[in-house]
């Protein structure tokens, strides 16, 4: 009953949304791209999407400058 978040094993919490996970992990960066099992998740779904057990979650932080 674990998920992987940026290569770290993390406990899976039943019913946890992406917003909940970001709060639990203290990811406070505002500009993110999130992938679950390889698929980019639209920002509009962060509050509703439940993270399945065993998921591989990638949280990619972006900084301004270019």
């Amino acid at each position, binding site marked *: 009953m674990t998920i992987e978040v940026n290569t770290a094993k993390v406990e899976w919490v039943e019913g946890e949304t992406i917003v909940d996970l970001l709060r639990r992990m203290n990811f406070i960066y*505002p*500009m*993110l*791209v999130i*992938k679950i099992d*390889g*698929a*980019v998740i*639209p*920002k509009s779904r962060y509050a509703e999407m439940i993270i399945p057990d065993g998921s591989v979650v*990638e949280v*990619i*932080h*972006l*900084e*301004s*400058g*270019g």
Partner: protein
Amino acid sequence: MKTLNRERIASRLAKSSVGIAGLGGLGSNIALALARAGVGRLLIVDFDEVEKSNLNRQAYTVDQVGMRKTEALMMNVAKANPDVDVTAYHHRLEVGKMADIFASVDVVIEALDDAATKAAFIEEISLAYPDKPLIAASGVAGIRGTERIQMRKSGTLYLVQDSQAPSCEDSVVLAPRVGLFAHWQASLALEILLGDIHDD
């Protein structure tokens, strides 16, 4: 290198296309590097004009201040390699409508400035074209940390990043460091385009 392989590389690149979103320190240097390498078609997009303050890092010249970046970069690419077919859009990429113009290119490069726009662009391109390689960059600002720059790959997304770099609002962006990111992105594009062709 055998002549045959050199010709295969040139031939493959000449038939290839790359789309570049943003023509600042990243995009202007990426376009020139890809043009010199022989990529046949570039699609370049930016809404901005060249400002004097851009010249510390962007591939424009003093006499181009005030010009549209798209026009100035087309000139500079043509001087470096007149065989490149450049399509330019003087156009601001708007959230929700960023993906369409990149439909025809083999590889997309994110070279935008603002973090929120970068995130939205990566999201839109990835959702619209799940199989198209997308090369992004993050963390170009600052004067230290060259050794921290690394490439993170996730499926078709390649991110050249320094995850500890400051924001450009808190530090400077200068030619050598942003050039490292730009050339790393351009080099990844070549690796992807050349795929099965090897060095030896």
